[in-house]
Each structure stands twice: as C-alpha cells, then as structure tokens.
C-alpha cells in the first residue's frame, strides 16, 4: 500500500503547481467564478488546454496529451486545490468526450474531440425529460429513420448549458416499446439544426444555467449515431459511469476547499467577541465533516487504484457521488448556521459575508443530491448492483 506519488508523478504535480502559480491570480479566480461569464470561462479552459492540462490522458492526435489517468487526477486535484475556476465545458470533458472516445467512430473522434478540449464547442446532455428523470429508460423523445437521417421530435428538460452549446449528446427512442432499454439510440445533435429550440429555466439561485429543450423534426445525419441503433442504453451507461466516477475525483477536492474556507469562517466569525470555533458543538460538526471528506478522498483513491490496475470503473463510483452530495450540503448548512442571520443575506447586500457566496453555495448545493442521479437512485444502485439485494419496486 502506498499513498504517495512516484517521483515522476511528483514532478508532474510540481509542474502543474508551477503553471498555476504563474497563471492563476485572484482576479482570474473571482472573474471566472462568476457563473454567467461564459467568455471568461472559455478563455480559462483554452489556456489550460494550451498548457497541456486538458484531456491529459486522451490521445495526442486528438489534442490530448497521451498521459496517464494518474496525471489526469493530479491535474484535477491541483486545479481544485489552487481554487482554479471550473472548466466551462464540463459535460464535454467529463461525459461526451469519454463516451465518444469509447464508442465513437474515428471520424467522430477527429471531428469532435479537439474543439471540445479547447472549449471552441460546448456540449450539453439531453437525457432528462419531463416524465423521465430517475427512470431514464422511460424517455419518449422519438428518432425515426428517414433515408440517411434520423428525424427527432420530443422535449428535454434541465439541460445544463444548452443555451451556449454547439452539440448535444441526446438519448432518443427508436423502438416504440414504451420503456424498454433496448429501444434507445444515442445521437450527437447539432444545436444549430433547424427545429431545436432552447428556453432558459431559472434556478433557485436566480441563475439560468439549465434549460428546456424542444425538438421538432430535427434532422440528424446517420453519421452522428453513437454506437448502434437500439444500443443507446449501453452507451448512456458509459456517460453516467463517467459522470459519477471520473468527475468525483475533482469534486472531492472542491469539498476540501469548501471545508478549509469553513474552518477559516469558524475562526474569524465572532459573536460578542468570541469566535464560533470556540463552541464545542461547532468543533464537533466541523471535525466530523473533515473526517468524512477524508474518508471520501481515500474511498476515491481505492477506486482509482483498481482502475489503474486495469479494472473498469464500477457501480462503487456511486458511493462517492452519494457521499459528496451529502457532505457538500452539510458543509454549506454548517456555514450558514455559523453566520446566523448574516448567512441569509444575498449577493449585492453590503453586509453579506463574502458578497453572498455562502448563501449562494447553500442554495446551489441543494441540487447536488438530484443532479447526476438522485441519492435515492444511487442507494438503489448500491443495494442492487454492489450488495446484490433484490430489485425494489
């Protein structure tokens, strides 16, 4: 057992750190953390890619670095530890990209991977529908084969970044069987196609990150089929597995940063001259969060070790997604509790601590146990696929 980095890995980490030291200042941090400023975030991803730190483990001929998975993890960790802005093209990098690499044709890879890495083209994920959320296989958006095209009609919802995306990974039904997994087909859809309409939805934070998406007789060339007709479920599983496993490594570090900030908050928030960190209840709560985030980190490393030994990422990835969403919510809740009434003050209010960032974080964290699979669904997966309990209903 060895938790330390090899000398080469440590050198690589130092290289990433060095680059971040030279290229990341507080202004970039703050500016690019603004949720709405797409162009700033696009610019940040381009710089990261030019430095060789996007698609680290992807093939060189596609704009990647041909590096190792471990290097990719190191980049994620260092970016988060340096409080670097999130990459803009999250769905492209962590979901669409790995899925195309696993199931795409050489033409699809060559066409889509390089611009995706540079954030020249943003991706969105059209899985959820008004009547198909957790029960994804019940989706109804229809794709009918017509000559060399699929003709797609239906409605998607909660589609993050659809309003700025060029491409969509779209899960559709080609077989009329109402809810069968076998009737699903996975398509790459050009968001500029006639018949695609995107309507923003406002979130509880006030932001409009996600959207409704209406598709009316959208023509999608056969060349944009990913996997086989009727084979969409298997392809979608690749996407979801990556959503929960690969992404998790970066998320975990974000929780540690939030925790560091929480500890500082507890020390510096005074009530009648006494720091909140002197309260034994506060100390217990924060210590417990620290312990659980550490457990999540090591669980993640154990999973990663197995992948590095050549195993596929398995349903165990759901352990970390489940832990992460709960922890992130509890970190945010603890912060608000520490702040008392000040915690409820919003951005723009002069008295709002950190210009309302804690309040925003609290609200945004409510989505953590819904997006990427709800906590209930993840528990089902763990019970049925890891523990082998009988299927529920």
């Amino acid at each position: 057992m060895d938790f330390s980095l090899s000398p080469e890995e440590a050198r690589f980490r130092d290289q990433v750190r060095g680059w971040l030291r030279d290229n990341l200042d507080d202004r970039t941090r703050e500016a690019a953390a603004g949720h709405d400023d797409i162009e700033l975030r696009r610019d940040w991803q381009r710089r990261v890619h030019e430095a060789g730190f996007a698609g680290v483990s992807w093939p060189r001929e596609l704009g990647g670095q041909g590096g190792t998975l471990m290097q990719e993890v190191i980049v994620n960790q260092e970016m988060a530890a340096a409080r670097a802005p999130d990459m803009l093209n999250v769905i492209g990098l962590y979901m669409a990209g790995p899925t195309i690499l696993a199931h795409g044709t050489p033409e699809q890879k060559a066409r889509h991977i390089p611009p995706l890495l540079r954030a020249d083209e943003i991706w969105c994920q059209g899985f959820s529908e008004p009547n198909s959320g957790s029960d994804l296989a019940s989706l109804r958006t229809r794709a009918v084969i017509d000559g060399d095209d699929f003709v797609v009609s239906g409605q998607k919802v909660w589609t993050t970044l659809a309003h700025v995306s060029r491409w969509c990974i779209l899960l559709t039904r080609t077989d009329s069987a109402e809810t069968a997994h076998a009737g699903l087909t996975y398509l790459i859809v050009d968001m500029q196609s006639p018949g695609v309409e995107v309507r923003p939805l406002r979130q509880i934070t006030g932001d409009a990150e996600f959207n409704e998406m209406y598709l009316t007789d959208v023509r999608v060339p056969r060349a944009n089929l990913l996997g086989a007709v009727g084979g969409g479920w298997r392809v979608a599983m690749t996407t979801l597995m990556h959503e929960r496993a690969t992404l998790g490594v970066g998320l975990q570090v974000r929780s540690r940063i939030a925790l560091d900030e929480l500890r500082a908050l507890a020390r510096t928030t005074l009530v009648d001259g006494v720091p909140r960190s002197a309260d034994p209840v506060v100390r217990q709560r924060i210590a417990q969060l620290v312990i659980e985030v550490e457990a999540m980190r090591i669980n993640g490393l154990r999973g990663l070790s197995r992948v590095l030994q050549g195993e596929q990422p398995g349903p165990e990835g759901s352990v970390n997604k489940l832990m992460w969403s709960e922890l992130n919510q509890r970190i945010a809740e603890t912060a608000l509790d520490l702040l008392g009434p000040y915690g409820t003050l919003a951005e723009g209010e002069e008295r709002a601590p950190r210009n309302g960032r804690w309040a925003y974080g609290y609200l945004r964290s409510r989505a953590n146990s819904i997006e990427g699979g709800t906590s209930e669904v993840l528990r089902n997966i763990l019970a049925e696929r890891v523990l082998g309990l009988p299927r529920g209903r």
Partner: protein
Amino acid sequence: MNVGLTDEQELLRRQARDFLDRECPAARVRQLMEDDLGHDPRMYARMVELGWTAIPFAERHGGLGLGLVDLAVVLEEMGRHVVPSPFQSSVGLAGMTLAASGDEAQAARLLPSICDGSQLATVALVEESGRWDAGGVRMAAERSSDAWLLHGEKLFVPDAQVADRMIVATRTAADPADGLTLLVVNTAAPGVTVRPLASMDATRRVAAVGFDAVEVPADAVVGEPGRGWATLRRGLDRAMVCIAAELAGTAQRVLEMTVEYARVRQQFGRPIGAYQAVSHRCADMLVMVESARSLAYHAAWALDNDVPEAPLAAAMAKAYAGDAARSVASNGLQLHGGIGFTWEHDIHLHLKRAKWGEATLGDATHHRERVAQLLEL
C-alpha cells in the same frame, strides 16, 4: 500510488480468514465468553505460530519487520470473527507502545516475549474519571532510592486477567500536559490485585487493578520519567488504528449477515431486501463500512511511514470507526427484526464488540475534539 493490498497481504487475509473460520466459529466464541481466562491459550499459540504476534515488530526484537497495514489485515479478520483474545492488548496496545517508545532497552527486554507469546502484556491508563488522556491520571508513583512505589487503582485495564506485564501510567509531576511516568509492572508482584469488571462484551475482558504498596525497580521505566504521556501517545495512536481496523471487520461482517438475511427473509410476499426502507439502510451501511476501512488503512500507512499527519489520520480513523461500527451493528440488528434481539443470534456479539471499541481509547466525541485541535480550529 497504489492503495490496494499487495499479493502477500491478500494471502495473509485469506490465511487469517481460513484459520479463524476453522478455529473460532461463533460457537467457540460463545464458549470462550463463559471461560474464566476469556480466551483460548492454544488458539493464541497457533496465532503465534502463524506469526501474527510478530507482524509489526522489528526483527532484532523477534518480529517480522512488517507494518501496521499488515497487522490491520489480520485485525480486520479478527473483528469479523469477534475473536476473544488478548492479542489486541498485548500486540496492538502494549507491544506497539514499547515499539514506538524509542526505549530500545525496554523494547529489547519485553518485545521478544510478546512476539513469541511467552508473555502477555497490557496497558493500565484509565482511572475513576474514565478519561483517556494525561489529565485523567492521578495515581502517583513515589520514587525511593532504587525503586518506585505504587498506590492506587486503574480501571478498564484490558485483559489484565491474563497479562503477565502491565505498562502503568503514573503521575510523577504536576504538569498539565504530561508529568507521567510509564512503569512496567509484573502482575504477579505483591500488592497487585486484578478484579474483573462485569461488562457488556464478554469477548473483551476489562479489569480493575489495585496497587497496594507495589514496589517496582527503578529500571522499569519506559522512556523518560515525567515524559510518559508523550511516549504513550505514540503507542495509543497505533492502538487506536488497531481497534479501528478490528471495528471495520466487525461492521463488514454485520453488513454481510444483514444482506444475506434481507435476501431470504420474506414478508408481505417478497424478500425484505426489496423494500427501500431496508435496502437504503444497507446502502448507507456499505458507505460506512468502506469509509471505516479506508480511514483505518490510510492511518496505518501514515503511521508506518511516519508522515506528519499520522496522528491526525489515527484520530480520524478511531472517531469514524467507533461511530460506524456501532451504527452498522444497530442497523443490522434492526433489519433482523425479532430474531436479531435473541441471545442465540450472533448479531449481538458484534453490537457489543462495537460498543467496546467505541468506548475504548476514547470515543468519537473525544477524537473529534482531537481532530479539531490538531487542525488548530
């Protein structure tokens, strides 16, 4: 980085599980619960033959020169089987304290006999207050010309009923941070009385030990006089991780028992495991078991490699494992329904062991406060 077990460690695990399946099934555990010694010396001798008692100690002291990670592999299996044995107190607590003390003379004197099983040792720390820290130690040792004189009582001394040697924490200076002196006491010395405490977990014996004008030779000190807490702390960090590993094994076994039961027990025409009130609890138990194991192994690795955050890792592992094992055992009992409440069913053995482990060497609240201090909160 590779945080999996090595092939040798996997082999050790398989060997330990096979041995304990054979030698220590639940029926044997139940017999030993009624036994005066509280363990089976023949089984202990076999464990010595397998090399388990020598795992974490240096070769010059008769050990195998392996690490805490290897010991954790064995302890996890012992936790699965709730093995009644002074192994934990002799090897994990007293042995690790000697090994980590930096006191080469004492280590050379005692460790070989702990490794070869010819002597059993333990640590006597806690007193009336029930505290697991330096401040809880009031029992004084008076220094005469060439001896120490002990008066007082220690409580919750693990496996004192079979220990040959006892490392006793005594107060020799009024120092809020330390002021302790560790003395090796022969339990057969005149004035030492061992009175077993009736406790919930009959697989883990604890005793009240009385010291009535017990004379200990001057060279019985472990480490420096007056610096005993600093010395003991290093041993306790290791012992905490040993308990954490054991608790992870206990919790893992409860999860397995519960899942097996939930698959076959039918109510309302289907297996109870098909109800989410049951299956979701099992999923949460899985998260706790995996996390307890991760933290225990990481802390073992950190101590083996002397990384700076090792004491923090140990405190985290003990805090989490204590809560997790108790919670998993309680949930497991609940999901067994009425049968889980019977003496006949094994689940209570695990619940009681979990409570023992939770309370021993400081509970989760104690160690969370330690985490807060180490993080300078």
